[in-house]
């Protein structure tokens, strides 16, 4: 039997082992587990097909040196890379997965061999493993170095861009404060303040995005505070940023708890701004906050076109944006950051979007982050 045919025959056994290995990585969702099998099988079929086509020495050399004409994203393995990235696998885990599949194919292939053949093959297996080990070590260090330079880049971007941006904003605020401006001049100065404020918030989101990736979770610093104060502040800011929208605040019960003040501001701001941006102009954005015994239920509602059915399940994923409505100032990070803030406070966030009734984001926030940071 040729190895290519053997892979096709033993597909089920190989897949079972691959699956068991991939499942050992934390953080896989149910959907990802279901998709795993399809990919793995496609990749193996592509490999078997590749092996059974005759190959000239020139082609073999090209493959060994990694030069290929076809675009990687169209292959099953390329797609697998895209999906793994989306599922939060790091590059080391991705490489380990291939090491595992090679090991199980080799193990199954050599199991029933004659002793003499087996010895020569064992040598080859050892060689394969040594190369795999070397690839793994190089990739770990390489990825680590790339990550560090990314971190440095974003840190410099955050700090160095903010400084001149802040100076521009403050200068425009000084102009507004001078109260000697004509109506048109005043309007121009207000636009500078609004726009610099938007860029500032985008920078904050980008830096947080990098931070979450690096540390697996946002750091929070909870203190006793009143959520209503934050909601009122945000409402005032949004009214300035989006003069076409009104922000309505409804609240019931005690709104006090222990949370990170700056993060709460960012959370409410991201949700309300999202509602203002996607909501129908002229219709109010409604922020309702219900203080219950142990938690606060905060919801942000807007009327307007519902979020599409394809987008809805992925709405909290980073860099996802509603392509029809996305405006240039949106990076698609706002809702992702909102979710990370809620997670860091042991809360939950959900969305409901319908043609009739509009879109509502609902956050359930425990009044206090539980002390035991056990497995959840």
């Amino acid at each position, binding site marked *: 039997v040729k190895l290519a045919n053997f892979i096709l025959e033993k597909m089920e056994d190989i897949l079972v082992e691959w699956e068991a290995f991939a499942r050992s990585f934390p953080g896989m969702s149910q959907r990802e587990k279901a998709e795993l099998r399809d990919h793995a099988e496609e990749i193996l079929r592509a490999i078997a097909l590749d092996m059974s086509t005759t190959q000239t020495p020139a082609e073999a050399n090209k493959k060994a040196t990694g030069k290929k004409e076809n675009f990687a994203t169209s292959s099953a393995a390329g797609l697998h890379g895209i999906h793994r990235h989306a599922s939060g696998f790091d590059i080391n885990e991705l490489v380990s997965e291939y090491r595992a599949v090679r090991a199980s194919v080799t193990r199954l292939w050599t199991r029933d061999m004659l002793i003499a053949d087996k010895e020569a093959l064992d040598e080859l297996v050892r060689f394969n493993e040594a190369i795999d080990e070397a690839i793994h070590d190089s990739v770990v260090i390489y990825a680590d170095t790339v990550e560090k330079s990314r971190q440095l880049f974003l840190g410099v971007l955050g700090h160095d861009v903010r400084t*001149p941006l802040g100076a*521009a904003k403050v200068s425009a605020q*000084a102009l507004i404060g001078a109260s000697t401006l004509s109506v048109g001049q005043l309007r121009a100065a207000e636009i500078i303040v609004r726009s610099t404020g938007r860029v500032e918030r985008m920078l904050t989101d980008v830096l947080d995005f990098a931070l979450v990736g690096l540390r697996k979770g946002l750091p929070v610093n909870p203190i006793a505070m009143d959520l209503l104060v934050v909601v009122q502040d945000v409402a005032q800011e949004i009214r300035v940023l989006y003069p076409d929208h009104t922000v309505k605040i409804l609240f019931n019960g005690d709104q006090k708890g222990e949370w990170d003040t700056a993060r709460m501001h960012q959370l409410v701001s991201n949700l309300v701004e999202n509602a203002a941006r996607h909501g129908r102009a002229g219709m109010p954005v409604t922020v309702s906050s219900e203080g219950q015994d142990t938690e606060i239920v905060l919801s942000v509602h807007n009327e307007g076109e519902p979020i599409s059915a394809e987008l809805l399940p992925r709405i909290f994923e980073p860099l996802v944006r509603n392509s029809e409505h996305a405006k240039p100032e949106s990076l698609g990070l706002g809702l992702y950051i909102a979710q990370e803030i809620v997670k860091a406070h042991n809360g939950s966030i959900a969305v409901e979007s319908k043609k009739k009734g509009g879109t509502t984001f609902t956050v359930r926030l425990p009044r206090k982050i539980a002390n035991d940071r056990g497995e959840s």
Partner: protein
Amino acid sequence: LTTACRILVADDNVDVVESLALLMQVHGHEVRTASNGVEAVQMAEQFLPQVVFMDLGMPLLDGVEAGRRIRQAIWGKDMVIVAVSGWGSDQAKQRTREAGFNGHLVKPASEKDLLQVIATASAGH
């Protein structure tokens, strides 16, 4: 309404220092500026401001040390010294607290927060 205050702004970035000075001037305050830590301490002694806004990463003498020297001087005991810095970590805030700063704003500090500091300081005098 806030009464006119004497304010010192220290930052090594020319645009930052000038824009903050302009903002405070239009709100009726008297402002002096410094572009490094040594200048900040000298200006504080000459001008005797009620409020000092201090950047931390400055040449010659960093902002934390400049703030500490002002706080330790007889003439600087009651000055309101507030850090305005790109560094907002807990460690950075602890360092300014230990040096005797009254507050720590993270850049970009909002107009509201800056004016709030001045209003509080002027109410305290």
